[in-house]
């Protein structure tokens, strides 16, 4: 049985990875999860300098999901390279570094800094709904997405994944734009912009007023978008949005995703990633699927 998948020349032992921002750099989760069993760890977004993030409360639970507006708090690339990369290097898994920025120059600086680091791929976050500048600004206009992809690709030594926002009229337009800009892979979806009102305090549940909705509540939207993008571009797709178990992950794979990321479910069950990987194998055994690649995009 083969569970290996290939993302732009990088071979993953299985298609299961973590979703950026829900797993740190794996340090806190390593006590619950065997990181060696994951296809890749996708780290929390890192910028050129430390970011303090948004005021609290930063999160609120919603039905079947949660809203977050953490605001990309991160220690900056210097601390990250000294601390987080050496930690992850101890494990037999691929390292995908999520990169965030406020301007094209910020992204380029981080990507250049990572050129000689032992990381396998870069995921460029052009879809965070919680920071005022950068982030989403590049993810909602095709022209801007194309430009930032080109700028990153010009300096990147590792394959580049562009992470797309669902908060657009037509996600295939964005996927085509980053493909034209030279993206090696696309990942989707980031969170959907949402709002929750705390009726007891009579104010917004998160201090940022709006935040990104994630969790099982958004899964059908995510599966639909992965399917649309699979039919619009040739580059591989990493699918995510509300995956809680192997069955959920297989929906994304059948809709056209080569790999999948588990995010919010880690908060409910820290072992979710490992269980999804094992569950995919169980499915393959049950239905005598020789190669996971046979299932990718099987739904047409």
């Amino acid at each position, binding site marked *: 049985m083969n569970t290996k998948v290939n993302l732009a020349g990088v071979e993953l032992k299985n298609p299961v990875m973590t979703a950026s921002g829900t797993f740190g750099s794996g340090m806190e989760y390593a006590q619950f999860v065997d990181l060696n069993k994951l296809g890749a760890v996708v780290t929390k977004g890192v910028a050129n300098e430390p970011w303090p993030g948004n005021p609290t409360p930063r999160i609120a639970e919603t039905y079947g999901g949660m809203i977050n507006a953490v605001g990309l708090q991160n220690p900056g690339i210097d601390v990250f390279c000294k601390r987080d990369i050496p930690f992850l290097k101890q494990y037999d898994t691929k390292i995908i570094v999520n990169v965030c920025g406020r301007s094209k120059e910020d992204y380029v600086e981080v990507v250049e800094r990572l050129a000689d680091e032992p990381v396998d791929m870069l995921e460029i976050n052009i879809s965070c709904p919680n920071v005022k500048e950068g982030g989403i600004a590049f993810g909602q206009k095709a022209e801007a997405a194309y430009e930032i992809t080109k700028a990153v690709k010009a300096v990147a030594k590792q394959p580049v994944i562009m992470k797309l926002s669902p908060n657009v009229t037509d996600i295939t337009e964005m996927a085509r734009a980053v493909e034209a800009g030279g993206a090696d892979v696309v990942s989707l979806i980031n969170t959907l912009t949402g709002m929750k009102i705390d009726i007891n305090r009579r104010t917004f549940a998160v201090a940022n007023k709006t935040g990104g909705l994630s969790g099982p509540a958004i899964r059908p939207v995510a599966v639909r978008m992965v399917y649309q993008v699979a039919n619009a571009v040739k580059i591989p797709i990493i699918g995510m949005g509300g995956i809680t178990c192997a069955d959920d992950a297989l929906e994304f794979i059948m809709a056209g995703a080569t790999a999948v990321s588990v995010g919010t479910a880690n*908060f409910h069950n820290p072992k979710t990633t490992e269980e999804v990987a094992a569950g995919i194998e169980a499915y393959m055994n049950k239905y005598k699927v020789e190669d996971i690649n046979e299932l990718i995009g099987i739904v047409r």
Partner: protein
Amino acid sequence: MSDNYRENVSIVSQEKLASDVFSMWIQTKDIAKNARAGQFISVYSKDGSRLLPRPISICEVEGDRLRIVYRTVGNGTKEFSGYGAGDTLDVMGPLGNGYTKLNKKAILMGGGIGIPPMLELARELKNGGYDVSDADIVLGYRDELFLNEELAQYGRVTIATEDGSAGTKGNVLDAIKAEGIKGDVIYACGPTPMLHAIKAYAKENGIECYLSLEEKMACGIGACLACVCKSKEIDDHSHVHNKRVCKEGPVFNAEDVEL
């Protein structure tokens, strides 16, 4: 790497202490024996629509058993209050740092659902050989009392109620002033406005002070960066003066945090 465990535990007993306050004893494998006062556990709902664990402070530890006393504030805690002996729950813990115990004349201050951790703290101070012969335990309630009688075995209990139905009418600081209570270290847990006032009081009177903070959490183990507080010192994680309540806290030296 650390002593956090995720376990499916069975409930030993559950009882109602006040109209919306419940006490639950659980039987754990490793959590209780590694737990100390001021730490908390994450309790997970069985309803798939509620994904995030509820952080609940540890009220008492006895061998492999652990007690939580919590208020039913929403559907998650209401769900927990419906379980009884023999039912099981997923929990993670012990989480957070817990109180730094000092051999000084102590004032333990709990407000509302911040009272439960004071029970384990009082017990540990007494059983740990700290000189607590003249410890003061000051408890603030809206109206209904709970845990006050159990706490009385570990120190002198003073009560404040918002409606004046018992003890001093007002809050814990009103009670301290009314009773002329003095001490060299304050350990406190309660709503943020109360902690804010205690911090100011401690500073004014030159008393060392440890506060247990509360913030909305998702992971409970320091990965998601939801539950940060503003800190004087640079934090370990992001180096931006944002300490994680779940990891570097929930107990902080009052001098180190902005409330």
